[in-house]
């Protein structure tokens, strides 16, 4: 693979392209960590926020509000630079970046999912109760299938947000597409001038994000979304 690029494009430039594509996999891995980790925590937060436990609901409403209001850059700084100082420990960039993006993702996804669940009309609950179903049964059989339909498009749309968010992880020493590209842009190698390398990086990010945007839009048309506002915010 590497030899092909080198012979195809001339020595220095071929290596640049190869390294950018090689680094792209770390962008993808970090996005997947954030999405899966954030999804997992998000499910728990959503479950608590639609449960009947009122004080826990308030606590987790605060959790969601907090991680939605805090800039992602500050989360990265706090976990990547602040946490090591505070506890006098070494923190791996994978851990810090993964945790920051996971917390950020969990807050957004739980908000989207809670919105989807609460937008199912109350009559559906009453209908379930009239049939003599328990709370869990009402949720699993009636509410969640309808909520899923509304939540899927903004969830896919939010993945774009995560992929773009990973571009900040280089600030705490994570070696992703952004880090490698920035390093080349600062090198004197011909063909890696900033006006070449940044559009190339933008094209790589675009080719990761745009299919997801299109998919989200397609799903939104087919299945509907929590609201036009929710869709717009999630795709932001």
């Amino acid at each position, binding site marked *: 693979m590497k030899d092909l690029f080198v012979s195809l494009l001339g020595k220095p430039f071929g290596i640049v392209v190869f390294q950018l594509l090689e680094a792209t996999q770390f962008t993808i891995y970090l996005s997947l960590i954030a999405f899966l980790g954030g999804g997992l925590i998000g499910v728990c937060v959503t479950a608590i926020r639609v449960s009947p436990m009122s004080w826990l609901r308030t606590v987790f409403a605060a959790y969601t509000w907090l991680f939605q*209001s805090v*800039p992602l850059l500050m989360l990265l700084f706090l976990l990547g630079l602040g946490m090591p100082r505070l506890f006098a420990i070494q923190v791996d960039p994978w851990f810090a970046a993964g945790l920051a993006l996971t917390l950020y993702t969990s807050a957004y996804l739980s908000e989207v999912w809670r919105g989807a669940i609460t937008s199912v009309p109350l009559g559906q609950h009453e209908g379930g109760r009239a049939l003599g179903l328990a709370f869990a049964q009402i949720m699993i059989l009636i509410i969640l299938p309808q909520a899923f339909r509304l939540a899927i498009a903004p969830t896919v749309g939010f993945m774009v947000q995560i992929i773009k968010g990973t571009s900040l992880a280089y600030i705490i020493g994570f070696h992703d597409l952004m880090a490698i590209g920035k390093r080349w*842009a600062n090198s004197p190698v011909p063909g890696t001038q900033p006006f070449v390398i940044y559009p190339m990086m*933008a094209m790589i990010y*675009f080719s990761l994000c745009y299919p997801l945007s299109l998919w989200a839009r397609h799903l939104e048309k087919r299945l509907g979304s929590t609201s036009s506002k929710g869709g717009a915010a999630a795709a932001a």
Partner: protein
Amino acid sequence: MFDLRFFEIYRNPEYLLLLGEGAAVSAFLTVIGGALGFVLATNLSALRHYKVPILAPIATIYVEFIRNTPLIVQMFFVAFGLPLLLGYQWPFWAHALLALSLNFSAYFAEILRAGLAGIGTGQSEAAAALGLPTWLGFSKILFPQAVAAMFPSLNSQFIFLFLTTGVISEIGVTDLTWAGLYIDSRSFRSFEVFFTLTVIYVLMALSFKALLGLAHDQLFKWKAVR
């Protein structure tokens, strides 16, 4: 094990001054960038709404490209790529302002497009029946309604974009994040510094939200009266 010493940063007047200046720069560039972005977005959404040949597809490609690439890549291109290519050099803040305006415009344009699409065709027909030229019909009839309908979305998008502006410190703009990084490098109190910074960002976001809420009530009185 915990060693929290906030007073070390708070007692140093140089640091406090730097944080204040940084917050002002962040707020200023965000507001101006947002305003310029909004003006650009108005034009982009008009091009797309009236399906102007050639320009409308270009506007669509532009909006999609900006929305699907990270701000930091756009900003580095604007700050380091374009000046090298075209042979000019502006101050850091001007590069940052350009990058922020372009970034804001794409998100606002997408929201405005949705707002315009939501207005019934009867409104355009009424404007035409009154003999208004297209641009007057747009600026006096369609656009105000689109903004009024989409104000909450524009508002939350603005707040969200404000929270992403910290990256302009990466090209050397002395904004709030830059102030934090500077204080961190001097005091080595990373957690305290970034915790303080986070609180300032959140408070600023809440202030923007409150101000935009007031602006909404003032701007769209006609909507409530009707």
